[in-house]
């Protein structure tokens, strides 16, 4: 229950944010999220930004995943 996709914020205009996924652009509602700035990534679900993507945590998750493979030859 969950089809949400990470989208990059291009601009913010009040309770709306212009976001892009690849070159697809959409005006997402910010009625459920505040403190959003251009350059942020949000999760887009059914037309709403429902949460921000934390780049630090994202990198950390990847680091952990990468590490798992480090001592195995693949």
């Amino acid at each position, binding site marked *: *229950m*969950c*089809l949400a*996709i990470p989208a990059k914020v291009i601009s913010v205009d009040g309770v709306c944010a212009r976001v892009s*996924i*690849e*070159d*697809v*652009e*959409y*005006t997402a509602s910010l009625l459920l999220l505040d403190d959003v700035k251009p350059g942020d990534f949000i999760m*887009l*679900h*059914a037309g709403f930004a429902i949460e921000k993507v934390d780049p630090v945590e994202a990198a950390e998750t990847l680091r952990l995943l990468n590490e798992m493979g480090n001592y195995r030859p693949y």
Partner: protein
Amino acid sequence: MIQKDKNIMLGHGSGGRMMHELIETLFIKHFGNSILNDQTDAAILPVPSDEIAFTTDSFVIDPLFFPGGNIGKLAVCGTVNDLAVSGAEPLYLSVSFIIEEGFPINELEIIVSSLAQEAQKAGVLIVTGDTKVVNRGKCDKLFINTSGIGRIRKENIHISKALNIESGDVIIINGTIGDHGMAVMNARESFNFRTSVESDCTSLNRLISAVLNKSHVKFMRDPTRGGVATVLNELAGKTGMGIEIEESSLPLRNSVKAMCEILGFDPLHIANEGKVLIVAGEQRASEIMEVLLNHESGKESSVIGRIVNDHAGRVVLRNQTGGSRIIDSLSGDQLPRIC
């Protein structure tokens, strides 16, 4: 004179003066050739010495105008491609219009002009046609039917029949998938996504004849409604062979991929109007690819899979993460989902 009328009226279809003016100032003006200009009840055509290929298609697309084309352009591409993927050289088209009363004439002219341009590009003549006008509400703005005649050489007749398909044969496509369906859906719905996706609709006869002149193919079909998945399932069903597709080999525009992820669509099920699936012997792959990649309609061609002996009658996709899944035909329309 026609310039007074802004919209199509019932009189334009009734066979009288209004209809003749419409034909002269719109259809003949754009389609004109020696056969059509005669305006006989039937076009008289020379019979080629080979076999004749004959196809028909009706176009009821909504919206009429979409990024990359309109119903007129599509009406030529659809029928020309049906002939071309069967191995025939398209020669003549008929074009019939069913127009809803009140349809704006300037829009009709844009559509007719596109149709004419595409026909010229494909090298086919529009030799006969028909015009009907129905009461408001009795058809959705405009429907077009095109029928096409082509000539087909004996050595190409097998192409549409899926005979002699063997394990190891390769499956090739001439470019990115899902563009047309996505462009149309985006134009039609109120979802408000802005994207550069355009319909890929184009006539493929020149591309295909270049391939047939240089090499040999075992089977061709165009993956229109239902997408690549549906054609491959038909092929697997008909031959009793299995088909394996590599997900990483499927040409896919980033924007189409993104739209599919957002809405929950599978690009393998989305319609294409400028694509041909080619099955050929493994040893033919590189020469066919060379022809395709050097043609404007084949720059993103790719070998996407092969015929196999396993999982008879089923199409299996090997995805980039190493897993596999079965690809079924499309059942019903694809629908955007939130779940």
